[in-house]
């Protein structure tokens, strides 16, 4: 087993590799973590993901922008590819499944992909419909996979109207479904007006919000189960 000092050193190296978008160091430190017998989930969450959280903060503070974010994500994945096969259990307390995609007419998927990556790292099951997704497809896929959460992205003022249709259709079919929307022209105000349950201001907020939404959904389900049992 690695000493606490060595552990800290490797975690810091992983974290910094992500922050400074250094793929080579991310790989090197991930191999080092395995060699000294560090728990891979420890290396992932307290090293790589902790770095990505800082990246999220830098993004929010407008010190980092999309190119930096993509570079950091590359470093994160470089490490994940090495560490993930060694993870024994990946459990953040919440397991959820999510349907995600960019709405019809809109081919902008960078933001959607960054959010997807955060979900992926957090252990969500993801059904990614890609970009320019026909509006009915969201409803179909949710029904087919019985997912907890549907995430819609749009980058253009000319296409975002499609989100409202998907929200209406989903809620009509399944009133308990949780829906989160995001994208440059979207705001909290619009999310509320259109009946979405969450608004993803950016990727880290999307993840936080998703965990809350799925938790509240699980709670509802548990309560419903408890009632059934009580009867």
């Amino acid at each position, binding site marked *: 087993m690695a000493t606490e000092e060595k552990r800290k050193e490797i975690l810091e190296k992983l974290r910094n590799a992500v922050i400074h978008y250094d793929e080579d160091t991310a790989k090197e430190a991930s191999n080092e973590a395995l060699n000294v017998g560090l728990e891979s989930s420890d290396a992932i969450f307290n090293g790589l993901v902790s770095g990505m959280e800082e990246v999220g903060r830098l993004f929010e503070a407008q010190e980092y922008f999309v190119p930096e974010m993509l570079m950091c994500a590359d470093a994160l994945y470089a490490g994940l590819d090495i560490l993930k096969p060694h993870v024994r259990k990946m459990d953040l307390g919440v397991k959820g499944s999510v349907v995600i995609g960019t709405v019809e007419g809109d081919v902008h998927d960078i933001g959607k992909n960054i959010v997807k990556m955060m979900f992926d790292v957090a252990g969500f099951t993801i059904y990614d419909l890609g970009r*320019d997704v026909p509006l009915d497809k969201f409803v179909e896929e949710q029904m087919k996979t019985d997912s907890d959460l549907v995430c819609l992205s749009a980058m253009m*003022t000319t296409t975002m109207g499609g989100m409202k249709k998907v929200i209406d259709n989903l809620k009509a079919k399944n009133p308990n479904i949780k829906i989160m929307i995001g994208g*440059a022209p979207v705001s909290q105000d619009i999310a509320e007006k259109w009946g979405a349950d969450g608004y993803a201001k950016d990727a880290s907020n999307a993840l936080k919000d998703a965990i809350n939404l799925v938790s509240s959904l699980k709670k509802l389900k548990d309560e419903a189960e408890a009632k059934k049992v009580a009867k």
Partner: protein
Amino acid sequence: MTPKEVIFTAFDFHKPPRIPVALFGGGMFTMYNTGNSFKSLAEDAKGMADMIISFSKRSFSDIVYVGSGYNNFHASALGGKIRYREIGAPDLEEPLVNTESDLDKLDLERLKDNATVSAIWEATEMVSRAIGDEFVVTATAWGPFTLGAQMFGVEKMMRGTFKSPELAKKIVDFAANLNIEFYSHLADKGIIKMICLADPTASGDLISRKQFENFALPYLQKVTSWAKIKGVKVLVHICGDTSDRLDLFPKMGADCISLDHKVDIARAKSELLGKICFAGNVNPVSVLNNGTPSEVEEMTRRCIETAGLEGGFVLMPGCDIPPTVPIKNVETFVNIAREWKLN
């Protein structure tokens, strides 16, 4: 004064008799309200021109844009496939440049062989002949960084600013040449007096100020320098929050910068007044699409009062408007400006 004179007076930092007002692009809005589709008009110059001319009679904009929504044809003309869709503007199926040698193979001459590009040129000429004395008639194009990113793939362009900056710059430079090639056909014959570029990928929501300075600004400058020689004015729109780079906009060499609703217009005024005419920035979705006419009135008045009383300003939505914006809202927006006298 004609709407055209009102706009150009503002471009020269003077006070026109009333607040100038324009939409930006408006392709989808026009198609939606005239029952046309991008596909049906794609190669029909007369249809395109008739639609624009008849829609201009409703006076929604002092600037009239021909070919709005067809911007991706400029790149596709050189070898990319276009995909039409029920919702949204047609776009490229795949990027057309992966490597430097792909770029070297592209031939600007092929632009004129594209049926849609030719139709846009022809339609612009017809529209200009019909209403060009009254309105500013122009076409639309992506700015160099956005066009380059479409050609290379947006994610690849984003990473390219770090991983292959020289190639990224070469692609954006080529895109600037493509802009010039596209507009030469209109400017050389005196058909248009202003060109229009939308550079949403150069947004403050996507790239940093430094990347903007390195990868977007020099190539915008390349196009504006060309425009200056040709004696045509330049309108540029950049989406998103560009507050951190407002001071760079006067250096662009454009005559007017159109700002997104995310920019604080009071701050924009204090940085830009007298240096470059600025336009904006009523929220196209929350206000124009979702608001009531009285909300539109309130926000429009507030925008004019904050930014427009000293001239050198054009009232615009913060971006292109959704097709579903209620006509009553657009009328409210436009009429406030048209009735607002400046003296």
